[in-house]
């Protein structure tokens, strides 16, 4: 019964979103107030219906209803309850349901927080979101129905992919999708503005907090995925340039460009066309990411659900979205005014260079991700494009971008004074140079790459701190929230860069053969193997190692890496044990038994400053959230509310 209710709600949601997508749009064109007024209730109904449908699916999972095919494929009675819940989005159908739920959630959020916006604008924005949802819901209902019954019901489910049985599954996909799908709001604002022909600074101001919020979720989502891969996959890497990682990274890069160009459009009314194009690009890349992951064109760590026939549908959807929005753009763009003038040396130019570099970076990742697919499709052989390629082409683009972070915020709008900027950067320059010379030597050995990384990190961090100090002096100890947000995010990048540099340059790795009692030293720490014993789990059996971590003879703690054999799968799973610290992680993972005497191959890593990578990402996201809550976005509400009063006064 529950699955039928869920299915029925899904169909009703489809109807609601059809109304949300079509009627307000027509109403806005014809100035029909009743149809315009439909947008909000339709968007909210759409969200509630999808939430109900989602809850039904979750209930089917929790109740082990194996008469639902999707549940039978992705769950098992032995699976702990929390994973039975998270398994809702562990497969293809459910993750799409989560996708549209997020989309409708963003739509509902727009509908309740947009009282200060013109009704026509809101109607158009919600309609565009509705139309996107129509496409995705049709996709779900016609090709990927999560409620399809399995008759006769399976006696037992075939279990969730063991790689996914991890707390990471509970948080990573929802965060990632929040970000991915959130760019739909930026896209909808851009399309609504194009339809109305009113591309102005107000439009940029309205869509800015939404874009930044989506960007923050995406940042957190990607960081969590990276951290998950780090501790789960057992090789201690944090980023592999895997196509699926790239699928989320491309919208992030485009979104980063977008939040910067929105700044120009809001403050100076310039580059509206370019900003609109970026908004279209960011969301298209999100859809492309969904296509890459969900169609199964990739075979990679993350692509679990694959069914080529479904790919065609998403590709079609992608084509319709990109094609129609570009056509609309080509029609409207020539009529858009150029906006305020500015000199060659100005914040506008700095932000444009930022945009060019970010777009080139996005393009490079896109090229590297799609190239092997293209070559394969053309029958030119099979090719792997991996980390060595991306590091080679990505770093030259990113280094000037990082250099610019310290400089850009110093530049004034319209016209900046180079000499003044140079004066204010002098101290940062000296500090960065010193850091480049000294820090690598403190860590061990000096290499050009680590020197460059340390230099960049200190360059950004010190310039950021000096700018805050300057501002506080001038502003009498206070500054707007968005100012703090920007600098916190930039500071986060410095932290991130330092983490990447130090762990890349100074990590130690050892592959050893260990028997009980053996000791391995890494990074000044000693790990002694106390025992390796068998231990049962809820749906697996594990070999659990007990390692004693010590430094200079003082025991710090014991670590328990595991090797798990899930009953439902052949692949053994590695659960690394990590002693995380502010300045280093000690990482132990069990390899395999080597002989009858109980010797195992063991891999240990010493990873200096690795947590700074994710810490930096969190700072970036925190900065973004601060910016979202800047007073001026809320002042707008008060100003609009008080307008009639002041008009009569």
């Amino acid at each position: 019964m529950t699955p039928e209710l869920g299915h029925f709600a899904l169909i009703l949601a489809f109807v609601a979103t059809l109304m949300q997508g079509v009627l307000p749009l027509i109403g806005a064109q014809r100035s029909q107030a009743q149809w315009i007024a439909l947008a909000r209730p339709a968007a909210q109904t759409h969200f509630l219906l999808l939430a109900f449908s989602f809850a039904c699916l979750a209930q089917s999972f929790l109740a082990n209803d194996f008469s639902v095919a999707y549940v039978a494929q992705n769950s098992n009675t032995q699976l702990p309850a929390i994973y039975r819940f998270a398994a809702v989005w562990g497969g293809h159908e459910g993750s799409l349901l989560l996708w549209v739920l997020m989309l409708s959630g963003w739509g509902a959020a727009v509908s309740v927080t947009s009282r200060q916006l013109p009704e026509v604008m809101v109607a158009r924005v919600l309609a565009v979101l509705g139309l996107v949802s129509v496409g995705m819901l049709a996709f779900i209902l016609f090709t990927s129905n999560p409620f399809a019954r399995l008759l006769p019901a399976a006696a037992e489910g075939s279990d969730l992919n063991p790689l996914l049985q991890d707390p990471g599954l509970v948080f990573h996909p929802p965060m990632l999708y929040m970000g991915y799908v959130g760019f739909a709001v930026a896209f909808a604002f851009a399309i609504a503005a194009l339809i109305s022909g009113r591309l102005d600074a107000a439009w940029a101001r309205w869509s800015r907090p939404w874009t930044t919020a989506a960007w923050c979720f995406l940042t957190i989502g990607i960081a969590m995925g990276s951290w998950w891969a780090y501790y789960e996959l057992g090789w201690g890497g944090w980023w592999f340039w895997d196509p699926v990682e790239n699928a989320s990274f491309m919208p992030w890069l485009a979104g980063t460009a977008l939040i910067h160009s929105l700044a120009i459009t809001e403050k100076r009314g310039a580059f509206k066309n370019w900003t609109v194009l970026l908004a279209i690009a960011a969301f298209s890349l999100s859809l492309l990411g969904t296509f890459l992951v969900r169609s199964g064109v990739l075979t990679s760590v993350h692509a679990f659900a694959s069914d080529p026939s479904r790919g065609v549908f998403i590709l079609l959807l992608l084509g319709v979205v990109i094609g129609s929005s570009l056509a609309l753009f080509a029609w409207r763009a020539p009529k858009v005014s150029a906006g305020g003038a500015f000199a060659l040396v100005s914040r506008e130019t700095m932000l444009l260079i930022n945009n060019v570099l970010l777009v080139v970076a996005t393009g490079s990742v896109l090229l590297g991700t799609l190239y092997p697919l293209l070559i394969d499709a053309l029958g030119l052989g099979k090719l792997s494009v991996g980390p060595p390629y991306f590091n080679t082409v990505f770093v030259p683009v990113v280094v000037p971008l990082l250099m610019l972070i310290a400089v850009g915020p110093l530049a004034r709008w319209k016209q900046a004074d180079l000499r003044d900027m140079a004066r204010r950067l002098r101290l940062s320059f000296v500090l960065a140079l010193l850091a480049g010379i000294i820090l690598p030597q403190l860590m061990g050995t000096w290499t050009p790459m680590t020197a460059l990384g340390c230099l960049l990190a200190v360059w950004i961090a010190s310039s950021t701190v000096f700018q805050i100090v300057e501002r506080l002096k001038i502003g009498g100890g206070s500054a707007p929230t968005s100012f703090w947000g920007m600098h916190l995010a930039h500071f986060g990048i410095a932290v991130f860069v330092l983490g990447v540099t130090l762990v890349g340059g100074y990590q130690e790795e050892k592959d050893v053969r260990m028997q009980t009692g053996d000791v391995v030293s890494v990074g000044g720490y000693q790990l002694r193997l106390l025992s390796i014993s068998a231990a049962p789990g809820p749906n697996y059996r594990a070999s659990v190692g007990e390692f004693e971590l010590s430094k200079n003879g003082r025991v710090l703690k014991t670590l328990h890496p595991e090797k798990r054999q899930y009953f439902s799968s052949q692949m053994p799973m590695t659960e690394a044990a990590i002693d995380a610290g502010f300045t280093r992680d000690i990482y132990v993972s069990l390899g395999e038994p080597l002989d009858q005497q109980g010797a195992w191959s063991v891999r240990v890593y010493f990873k200096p400053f690795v947590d700074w990578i994710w810490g930096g990402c969190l700072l970036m996201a925190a900065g973004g959230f601060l910016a979202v809550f800047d007073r001026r976005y809320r002042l707008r509400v008060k100003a609009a509310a008080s307008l009639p009063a002041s008009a009569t006064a």
Partner: protein
Amino acid sequence: MRRWPVLLMLFALVALVAGGVFAGEAAPLATNEAVEKRLMAISEELRCLVCQNESIAGSQADLANDLRREIRKMIGEGKTDREILDFMVARYGDFVRYRPPVKPSTWALWGGPFILLAGGLGALVFFLRRRNRMAPPPILSEEQRRHAAALLDQSDT
């Protein structure tokens, strides 16, 4: 008691072995650190063909373990990195390399980002220059500006 020396030797041997087992520094899977460094560098460039997108350095699959052993052997035989990579490509094809070879079918791949960068910066310069040429003259002339300032001063008082 002729057996004593033998027994003593046995004891010594047992103690040695036991000592080796119970307090020993774990034996690295490789004996030479320089070799290990090269092994990691090479195997990070190679794809583990039975895994889902993992390098031979990272993977714990049997194939990856075997290949690491094989590369270690080849390093021991004095082969250069180049020769080892060539051997792997000869055996498994270009697919095994994470750094695609530069050849006609990958020119676009390797050249693309740099063409994009050059094109992007070129477009930026072109755009900025055109925009500067087209930029409208200041909205107020110098005289008007002074007049406005004077008006503002008046209103202040």
